[in-house]
């Protein structure tokens, strides 16, 4: 409990006044001659006892009245969390006072002893209980925040920028409402306050004043991917905790839809609990209770890269809200013309002039009781270049962001591959893997034995794959080296046939072979060392469930050390020895796998690994396809992306330019990107918004690469967090919830300055005053006639 000023409590001294008056100022009763005294005396004793009791009660009432009035004038405040306790204490003490009266009446009225003592005991217990409760609440409860309303605030404002914040309600997007609300909040802060706006970009410190923060707020917009709101709240709490300012406040402006809060766990609640009382966490709900949404699910492609003339199937899901009257929906497929000279920025308008787009398919999707149905489009006979498709749900609804899906497919001319293997069976397996369209397409892969290598015309092939190479002749190695150095790709899959003294083979390997490391205690498996490497792109769709630990490796080649420029894409979990390496040879690229895939089950030797023979060889399959695609220049899985992620593209300078102009509809400008020539990669910054992203460069002629980003369907779910969910995410008593400005004002006011007990005290004062009047009139009421006398 705190007071406006502690000196105001000096008013409590006034309690002594009625006591003094009672002791020293007792007025002598008026003396009257009265012959019929005998009739008065009969009831006098009874009268005297009750009179004394009432006199004492009157004194008590007056003391209480003055004490409570003195306390009320001192403007007591308690932390709002303690208001309930204080009211409870008040009720108990009132009951205690009533019990005391009953006990006093019992003693005066000479009730049976048991009644007297029982009433007294109850009264005493109630007083003790109420007093203890009050003392414990005041000592253990949270302290009342500082009372200076103009004191500066350390405020971190977390804005939910999830895609659902684009939901339009009453003609305005939630994010616009959030911006307005935050600006109003900033206006309410004292001028010296320090502010941080956490809306996506990292914030190192509360460096803004409220006026400067307004400008930042204007730039905040909803992103195309789910927000890690929990992470932002955690960062916000850390920021304000580090501030030297006394008042610390965190505002979370969110529509309270589930996706942004899904990462909530007990950790945050625990963290907030530790700073409760010090940091005020105010959640502001800008969402709607009855939101509806029509939308398309995530697009699924049966191939992420294709060769010219092939077909790709794309499927998505149409979802309608339960409340919708319609039973069908129209979905259209648009295709953008392939024109490497577009887009260009129209400098006068700041908009993009894009290649023409036309509808190539339209489907009416019938929806059953499930309110969702799958829709499938066949993209036939794809032409070389970046093929951009847009799937559109033809319907107006409050959340438009998920009504369109964007698909980009890089279509390459065929890239021939040569597979060299001792065993024809394995060669065929690898050939089929590289060239799945072999049945009706031009033969793109061939397999030969090592014996035929020296005679092979390597220049006819883009990629050479060596499976379990034995000791090769110097000429053969030189041939491979030169082919690769001229811009080719080389995948070497080491196996039992390799020799420690690798001889000339070392020229095409990333280092000198040391020995075959063996382990059979289930501790060795692949571990991703370079997660963003394009080789792993094919695996990205399983990235969440990619569990290498079940695919054990028993034997593998180890290097003494890796050459300069060589690096590991995968390593072994136990030894950090490289499992898959990448190194440049001249203008070409070589990948080396140190344990064989595919590893056939053979009877003449022990298995080197379980990568191929396990129940789920898809990881091994994806790894091989990714490696060969990477070497042949395919951007497998790299074109159609989930919004909110950055993308790394392979950028072989023999095929792609080093500098690009980067376009997107929402940029309003042209951005420049430059590839990392050493690694041969191009890093594209985060694709924040859904849509197409164009990379235009110049090699021998104009070159265009396209990416597309989509809002994850899960991020546009409008299911709201229940109160229980919010309680479990933030901790029941760790935050306050408000939905409008007046609620915020009230909530913040209570949290900053506690709850005023003045009205409560004045109510008690009024009650005591009435009681005092009633009782004193009984003693001192002179009638008109009496006064006249």
């Amino acid at each position, binding site marked *: 409990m705190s007071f406006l000023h502690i000196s105001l409590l000096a008013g409590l001294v006034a309690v002594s006044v009625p006591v003094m008056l009672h002791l020293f100022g007792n007025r002598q*009763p008026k*003396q009257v001659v009265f012959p019929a*005294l*005998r009739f008065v005396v009969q*009831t006098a004793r009874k009268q*005297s006892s009750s*009179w004394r009791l009432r006199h004492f009660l009157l004194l008590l009432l007056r003391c209480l009245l003055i004490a409570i009035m003195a306390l009320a004038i001192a403007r007591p405040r308690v932390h709002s969390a303690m208001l309930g306790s204080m009211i409870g204490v008040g009720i108990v003490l009132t009951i205690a006072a009533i019990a005391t009266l009953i006990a006093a009446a019992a003693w005066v009225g000479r009730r049976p002893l048991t009644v007297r003592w029982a009433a007294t005991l109850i009264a005493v217990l109630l007083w003790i209980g109420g007093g203890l409760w009050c003392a414990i609440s005041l000592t253990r409860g949270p302290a009342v925040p500082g009372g200076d309303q103009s004191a500066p605030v350390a405020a971190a404002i977390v804005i939910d920028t999830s895609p659902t914040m684009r939901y339009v309600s009453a003609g305005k997007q939630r994010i616009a409402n959030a911006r307005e609300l935050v600006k109003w909040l900033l206006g309410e802060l004292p001028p010296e306050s320090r502010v941080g706006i956490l809306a996506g970009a990292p914030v190192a410190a509360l460096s803004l004043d409220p006026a400067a923060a307004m400008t930042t707020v204007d730039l905040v917009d909803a992103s195309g991917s789910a927000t890690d709101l929990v992470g932002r709240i955690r960062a916000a709490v850390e920021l304000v905790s580090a501030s030297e300012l006394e008042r610390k406040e965190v505002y979370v402006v969110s529509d309270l839809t589930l996706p942004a809060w899904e990462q909530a766990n007990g950790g945050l609640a625990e963290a907030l609990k530790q700073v409760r009382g010090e940091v005020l966490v105010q959640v502001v709900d800008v969402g709607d209770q009855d939101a509806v949404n029509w939308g398309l699910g995530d697009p699924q492609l049966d191939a992420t890269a294709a060769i010219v003339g092939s077909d790709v199937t794309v499927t998505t899901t149409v979802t309608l809200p339960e409340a919708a009257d319609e039973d069908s929906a129209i979905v259209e497929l648009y295709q953008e013309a392939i024109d490497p000279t577009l887009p260009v920025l129209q400098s006068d308008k700041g908009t993009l002039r894009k290649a023409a787009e036309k509808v190539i398919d339209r489907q009416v999707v019938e929806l059953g009781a499930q309110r969702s149905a799958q829709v499938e489009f066949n993209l036939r006979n794809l032409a070389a270049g970046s093929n951009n498709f847009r799937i559109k749900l033809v319907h107006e609804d409050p959340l438009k962001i998920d009504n369109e899906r964007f698909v980009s497919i890089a279509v390459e001319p065929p890239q021939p591959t040569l597979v060299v293997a001792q065993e024809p069976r394995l060669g065929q397996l690898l050939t089929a893997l590289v060239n799945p369209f072999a049945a009706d397409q031009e033969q793109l892969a061939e397999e030969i034995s090592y014996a035929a290598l020296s005679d092979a015309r390597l220049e006819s092939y883009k990629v050479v794959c060596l499976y379990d190479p034995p000791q090769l002749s110097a000429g053969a190695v030189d041939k491979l080296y030169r082919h690769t150095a001229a811009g080719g790709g080389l995948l070497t899959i080491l196996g039992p046939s390799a020799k420690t003294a690798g001889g000339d083979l070392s020229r095409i390997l990333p280092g000198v072979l040391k020995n075959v490391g063996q382990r059979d205690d289930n501790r060795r498996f692949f571990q991703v060392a370079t997660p963003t490497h394009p080789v792993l792109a094919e695996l990205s769709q399983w990235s969440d469930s990619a569990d290498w630990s079940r695919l054990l490796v028993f034997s593998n080649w180890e290097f003494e050390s890796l050459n300069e420029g060589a690096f590991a894409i995968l390593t072994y979990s136990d030894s950090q020895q490289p499992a898959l390496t990448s190194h440049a040879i001249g203008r070409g690229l070589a990948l080396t796998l140190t344990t064989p895939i595919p590893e056939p089950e053979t009877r003449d030797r022990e298995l080197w690994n379980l990568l191929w023979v396990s129940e789920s060889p898809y990881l091994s399959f994806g790894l091989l396809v990714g490696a060969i695609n990477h070497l042949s220049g395919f951007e497998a899985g790299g074109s159609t992306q989930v919004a909110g992620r950055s993308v790394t593209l392979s950028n072989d300078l023999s095929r792609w330019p080093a500098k690009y102009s980067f376009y997107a509809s929402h940029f309003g400008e042209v951005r420049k990107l430059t590839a990392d020539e050493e690694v041969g990669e191009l890093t594209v910054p985060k694709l924040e918004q859904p849509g197409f992203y164009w990379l235009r460069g110049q090699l021998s002629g104009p070159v265009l690469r396209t990416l597309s980003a989509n809002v994850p369907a899960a991020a546009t779910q409008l299911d709201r967090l229940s109160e229980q969910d919010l309680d479990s995410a933030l901790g029941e008593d760790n935050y306050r919830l408000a939905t409008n400005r007046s609620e915020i004002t009230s909530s913040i006011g209570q949290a900053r300055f506690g709850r005023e007990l003045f009205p409560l005290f004045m109510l008690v004062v009024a009650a005591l005053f009435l009681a005092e009047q009633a009782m004193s009139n009984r003693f001192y009421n002179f009638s008109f006639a009496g006064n006249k006398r």
Partner: protein
Amino acid sequence: MVAVEQYLKPELAAQIKRLDLRAKMVVRGFLHGLHASPFHGFSVEFSEHRRYSPGDDPKDIDWVAYAKTGKYYIKKFESETNLTGYLALDLSESMNYTYRQSLTKLDYSICLAAALCYLMIQQQDPVGLVTFSETLKASVPPKSRRSQLPTILSQLTKLSTSGQANISASLVQLTAMLRHRGLVMIFSDLLCDEEPMVKAICNLRHAGHDVIVFHILDEAEVSFPFDGMVELRDPETGRTQSVSAADAGRDYRKTVDEFRARLERSFSENRVDYVPVDTSQPYDKALMEYLLSRRNRF
């Protein structure tokens, strides 16, 4: 001009200094409002019949004579000469009390006694006066001469209070003193021990006397008009008691009412007339109530 009836109010009667005039005014004021003589049945007895003439009260028609003769006759009465009246006044200290009235209890008693004396002398009844407090004090022997009135009135004007009341002892003395059957009119506030007092009065009745008890209390003793804390003092004993008037008043009034009710019951059982009055009441009320009850009884 003040009407004669106005003097039935004690505060106006008090303005008349001479007691004889006061008694006269009271009696005349009282008689003025009556149709017929209030004395029928009271110290008068039947003398003769006369013929009924219009204007006579039909109540006075002798229906037995009518039955015998077939004519209306009116009963005529004449004074009884052998009923002796004794005015017995309480002179204890408590009688000299008023809180906010113009007359003390004693003044009121004197006025009432004077009026009754006047009435009795007018009908030639012998009237005597006895005063008492702890014991019997002065007395004027009963006579029916007209000169008796000034004698008694002059005695009444000289009365003053002193000492505590001992009604029972005084009345025992009085009973022994009275030799002839008579009418004893007691004027007292009866503030003494209840039981012996009631017993003594009843003994007086049992000795063959008609007894009328005028129980005179001050208005304040009936209504208890005090407020706040008061310290009450008994003028006879000097005893004091502090009370909260608001709390004590209710109980006090109840006690007084019970006391009066008890007396009325006891006296009624013993055929003693009991007239409770307080000093704020007009005299006529006291006189009328009493005389009408007398009349109905005979």
